[in-house]
């Protein structure tokens, strides 16, 4: 009798806990679940990180060499919010179209590539997940979400929220032509203010030749391990 009562109390306590967790977890409804590790994979598609500086004297458009982009994400298609991971970009993989300017970018006055060779984004969670489409028959789903995490540039950390589009594709004969495992693509845009990361540059250049805020546009493609 006592055991039954205790069991009922435990169940009564667990139900709201599970409901709370459920209210924060969104699923792609692709009849697949379980956490998987996803790694940036060029065979899935070429990753792209573009940066744009708007300044009165010149607009600088640059990109990061795809070999300098890496990342590992833990992702559960049945619990999208729980995604975690890290994206790393090598500073010396950034290209601006002028050799001398690349050298300036990597130098102590700017990103200091010797002391801080990488720019990293540490994904802590996804929130505000909205399923845009889900096709269990094709094993494909898309969602919009806000990726929250910390970005480290020039040795300084800052918490940021990035609006991202996520596409999940279950492994199929078609995907196997590129790579094995499930595929995940993440794309988004965000801005970085140089002063937030103590990047002062050469005197007088920020605001005239280099924008105070840099626009970042990224598209990353992962495959599960």
């Amino acid at each position: 009798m006592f055991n039954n009562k205790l069991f009922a109390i435990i169940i009564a306590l667990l139900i709201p806990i599970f409901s709370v967790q459920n209210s924060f977890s969104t699923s792609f409804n692709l009849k697949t679940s379980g956490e998987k590790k996803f790694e940036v994979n060029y065979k899935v598609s070429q990753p792209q990180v573009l940066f744009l500086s708007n300044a009165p004297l010149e607009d600088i458009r640059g990109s990061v060499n795809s070999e300098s982009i890496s990342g590992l994400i833990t992702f559960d298609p049945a619990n999208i919010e729980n995604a975690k991971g890290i994206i790393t970009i090598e500073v010396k993989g950034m290209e601006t179209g002028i050799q001398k300017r690349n050298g300036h970018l990597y130098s102590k006055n700017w990103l200091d590539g010797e002391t801080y060779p990488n720019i990293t984004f540490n994904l802590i969670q996804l929130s505000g997940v909205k399923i845009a489409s889900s096709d269990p028959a094709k094993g494909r789903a898309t969602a919009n979400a806000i990726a929250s995490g910390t970005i480290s540039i020039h040795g300084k950390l800052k918490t940021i929220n990035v609006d991202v589009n996520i596409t999940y594709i279950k492994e199929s004969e078609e995907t196997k032509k590129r790579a094995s495992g499930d595929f995940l693509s993440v794309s988004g845009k965000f801005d970085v203010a140089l002063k937030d990361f103590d990047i002062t540059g050469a005197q007088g250049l920020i605001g005239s030749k280099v924008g105070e805020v840099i626009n970042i546009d990224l598209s990353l493609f992962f495959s599960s391990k």
Partner: protein
Amino acid sequence: MKWKILTYISLFLILPLLFKWYVDSKDFGKAIIFSMDKKPVVTKSVDPLFGTETTKTEWKSGFWLGLLPNDDSLSFNALIGVLPIGGFLIVVGGFGIFMNYRQKKKRK
């Protein structure tokens, strides 16, 4: 007479300089402010698997003349731009006009 020739040559050389800048800017898709070593070649395509537009950026090496040099060091490269070269040619042309004027005055 020789100063007149110098003036004509120097002012005439500005034209191919401007033409090269115009052609390079057209090739680049925008007016080039600083001379460039590489040009981004952007290819946009729709990925049939993801159904999204993907952008591929590759860098083509070469030289594209800008209004200003892309090098701020004390070297020859720091002069390669329309404004420094054009400015130099204008100064030479102006010097030729001045010397021609002086020569004419002396003869009189």
